[in-house]
């Protein structure tokens, strides 16, 4: 077996199919076809591909929200069986509980983990502070902007101190400026916490800006794995976009996305 540090993710020959009723007929949909990849401890890997390529399914399997039809998934050397506190999920639309304040939303995961009393509140507050929302602790989700909601979502996932942070297109619904500042903050937080991050996106720039490696997916399989030779810490992301390495990496991913075994259809 792979000698794994705690944040190491290993996906071995994983297939996932489910049946879907279309026009009164059951069709088997192959969401993943023997997908294998590894994510090293403290690495940021982005999964990119068109809708329906299986990237979100892969992430949900890592989280334990879906099972595999075939293959093995391990996190930190342990086989994934259902959800666990070694993984934290950041949802596409934050999915804060609307009846709780920002602070209570962060406390929710910690409470589930069994934390109580002063430690609970202080820990939650520390993570809200980490995402820059200490002042908004008592606001409810409807009083938060989209970007703020997603910050709370990140704080909630980070608070349980998972080994791996799994993020499902978390910035997809945000405006360009908010998205950019959150990308920068995510990199800062990762630099401080050294979390392994698996990040699903359909945004080319985002994939390159965040990743150490990019996994390009198409139709349930891995099309290509691309190394991003940009240095870490990444510093000013705006300036980074102007560099030749960024352009080169971006072009590589673009080519991989467009080099279709079967023509991309929408």
């Amino acid at each position, binding site marked *: 077996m792979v000698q794994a540090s705690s944040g190491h993710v290993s996906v071995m020959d994983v297939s996932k199919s489910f049946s879907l009723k279309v026009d009164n007929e059951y069709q088997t949909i192959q969401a993943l076809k023997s997908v294998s990849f590894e994510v090293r401890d403290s690495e940021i890997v982005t999964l990119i591909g068109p809708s329906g390529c299986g990237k979100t399914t892969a992430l949900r399997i890592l989280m334990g929200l879906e099972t595999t039809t075939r293959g093995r998934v391990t996190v930190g050397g342990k086989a994934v069986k259902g959800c*666990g506190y070694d993984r934290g999920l950041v949802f596409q639309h934050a999915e804060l509980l609307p009846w709780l304040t920002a602070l209570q939303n962060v406390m929710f995961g910690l409470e589930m983990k069994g934390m109580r009393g002063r430690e609970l509140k202080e820990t939650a507050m520390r993570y809200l502070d980490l995402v820059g929302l200490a002042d908004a602790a008592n606001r409810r989700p409807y009083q938060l902007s989209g970007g703020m909601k997603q910050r709370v979502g990140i704080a909630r996932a980070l608070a349980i101190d998972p080994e791996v942070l799994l993020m499902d297109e978390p910035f997809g619904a945000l405006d360009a400026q908010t998205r950019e500042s959150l990308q920068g903050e995510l990199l800062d937080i990762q630099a401080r916490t050294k979390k392994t991050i698996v990040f699903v996106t359909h945004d080319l720039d985002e994939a390159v800006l965040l990743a150490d490696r990019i996994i390009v997916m198409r139709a349930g399989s891995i099309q290509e794995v691309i190394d991003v030779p940009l240095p870490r810490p990444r510093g000013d992301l705006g300036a980074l976009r102007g560099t030749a390495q960024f352009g080169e990496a971006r072009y590589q991913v673009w080519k991989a996305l467009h080099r279709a075994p079967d023509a991309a259809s929408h």
Partner: protein
Amino acid sequence: MSDQTSLAAAAVVREEPALRPPREMPRWAITSLSVALAVLAWEIFGRDVNPVFGSYPSAIAVAFWELLRSGELHAALWQSMQAFLVGYGLAVILGVPLGLLIGRSRFLEAAIGIFVTGAYAMPLVALVPLLVLWMGLGFAVKACIVFLMAVFPIIINTWLGVRAVPKTLIEVGKSFVASDFTIMRRIVLPATIPYIMAGIKLAVGRGVVGMVIAEFFTAISGLGAIIITAANSFDTARMFVPVVVLMVLATALNSLVGYVERKVAPWQSEISGREEG
């Protein structure tokens, strides 16, 4: 030249007191006026009707005062409310958890759901003679009829509410390894509160109907008794008194539930009308 005039016009506009709220009639005033007009119309036209076939507000007010003075109204109201509160309370206490369970469990939904929808659609009133056979003519049968009328809308609304809870919110619970019970208590229940409250409101009206019917068919007692005896002696004004009292009571109960809802789920009134991202 024209620039100057428009500038001058702008200046004039700015001198106007800023942001005067538009003069609109407040809602309560519209409602009060509408009720007053309806009562007035009833009073005017009702006087032309033979007092056996109809009545009018001032006659009802006089009958109300008489019933109040003789103490009949208090006694009857208390009798009725006891049965109502027990039946209705039980309906809430049992209906909500049952609705939650049916909504969450595929098995229970398939096994019990059909009985609930069936019982809701069934004319329960038709069963009253049978219930009397089982339970006699006393308090128990009245409470039971109120319960049966009230419990099904509560179960059905709660059930539908659970079905409407976004799957992703449940996954939030799962992603933090919450147990099914915890997910139910911490996520499903609060997310379902608006539906539960809607069911509880519906149940008020149905429960009141159940109560009056029970009082007609069983031991003649409570407000239902006043209605029946007054109707039998063609005292129509007197008959209207409990009807009006019940209407006011049911409306008040509904507002009370609405008030409780805003206290228990203050986020809801803020969210509704906004798009949720």
